[in-house]
């Protein structure tokens, strides 16, 4: 149920993001989703890829500061109020969300949202009890 997300530390200077994508490309790694959060000095690039282990080693070898974080890929109805419903469910059980980002998949009518929460296992329990689909690791990598 838990998906491996790759986090990369990037200084805010030109060309660094291009370099990351180049390394992934030349290692035949496909990016499924990404998000960047930044301050004035540095940013953290978060990636969901088809082969997280290979991505981790390739970036590390290239000298990047990389880490693997567990996140959840949650199916959210692609209609008004869809995300609100999921957030309300998590909120009612006091599950804190550190961050989230979304991408629309080609395969399904639903939207896919990546959640980083404090307690993955409890979040999975709560979501499933409320019939919200949490995607399997293999499913996400194969998207």
């Amino acid at each position, binding site marked *: 149920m838990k998906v491996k997300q790759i986090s990369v530390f990037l200084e805010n200077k030109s060309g660094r993001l291009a370099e990351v994508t180049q390394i992934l490309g030349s290692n035949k790694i496909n990016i499924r989703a990404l998000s960047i959060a930044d301050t004035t000095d*540095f940013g953290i690039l978060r990636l969901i890829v088809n082969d997280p282990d290979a991505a981790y080693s390739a970036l590390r070898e290239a000298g990047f500061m990389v880490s693997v974080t567990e996140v959840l890929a949650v199916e959210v109805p692609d209609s008004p109020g869809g995300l609100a419903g999921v957030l309300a469910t998590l909120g009612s059980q006091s599950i804190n969300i550190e961050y989230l980002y979304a991408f629309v998949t080609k395969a399904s009518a639903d939207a896919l949202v990546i959640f980083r929460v404090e307690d993955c296992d409890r979040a999975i329990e709560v979501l499933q009890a409320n019939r919200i689909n949490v995607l399997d690791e293999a499913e996400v990598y194969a998207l």
Partner: protein
Amino acid sequence: MIWDREHECMDRESLERLQLSRLQQLIKRVYHRVPHYRQALDDRDIKPEDIKSLDDLKHLPFTGKEDLRRNYPYGLFAAPMAEVVRVHASSGTTGKPTVVGYTQRDIATWAELIARIVSQAGVTNADVAQVCFSYGLFTGAFGLHYGLERVGATVVPASAGNTAKQIMLMQDFGTTALISPPSYALYLAEAAREEGIDPRELKLKVGLFGGEPWTENMGHQIESLWGIKATDNYGLSEVIGPGVSGECLEGAGLHISEDHFLVEVIDPETEEPLPYGEKGELVFTTLTKEAFPVLRYRTRDLAILNPEKCACGRTSARMCKVMGRTDDMLIIRGVNVFPSQIESVLMSIRGIAPHYLLIVDTRGPLTQLEVQVEPDPSVFTGSFRDLEALEDSVRRRLQSVLSISARVKLVEPKTLERTAGKAQRIQSAK
């Protein structure tokens, strides 16, 4: 006005006689009271009675910051602690400060020396003097404070910081003399303008600036922003604090109180004294201090000496503005900062690689220090919060050791220069 005409305008011959007798007493004092100096003199086979002329100065041992460190805190004091009424300290190179002491008489001497400098700058008992140095271990505030009181000026001990309040005090109290680091004068002027106050409309007429080196250009800038006369003064805690030398209104160098301090300029490499007019490292020997005398203290400051009589009437030798340093000490907002201090802080923090780059940004009115560090890849969790906590802990540790705030910037691993020898670790912001 000349505060102490007898000593400030002494003819060279009488001055040298006075200096010699004081030097002989000094050597006697440190030889019998300070084991460090006794050892250093014995190593050179010098006995106090061997000092026959001022020329013998060149045979005496130098004293450096490392000697102060080795004798921390009171090892170089030449007066019993019962007679020491005050200590001050400046930042050291490795975290421990260097400590200096004063007897009752030293404090009185200091006030006299400051009274000279203050009078040279034209400050009298008609002035209201606002002291914007921080009152504490550093010598700046207290040193100037007592000398200003000595001439009868009304002292406003505003201390450092709280700019809005400083401006309010200047307006309400009718401040006529500003006592601060020069960079702070620029900053204050800018802050006043932002509040819609024209600094030229205030009553300020003169500034006594010191604690950090500044250029003629910066002086012109301060003068035109405030509509005042900007004067420079120089000192260092190891010698006495402020009061070693100061500018008169001729603006042609800083008069050194030579009856209290023997000054030399040496070649920092060969350690040989240089003739007047040549640029070298300033070396001071205190002639009258009781608690903390120093023999040939190497300041690491570079300057040129001029022995000519000044148009103001004073006969004391003048030094030019400090032209640079022989070591890598930085002066940030009046506070001495050694890269080695920053290094020792970084070494003690987990999650940071022991490499760093210092960026000194003098473009704004206040000099800013940026410390670039590399997080250790093994502590990277991918969480923003963790990185910010790391940045914050580095900032707080630096603040507590350096006494100034530095900006901390995390950079990617292995991007800071690594060399076998001394890395180029200081840059100026462009």
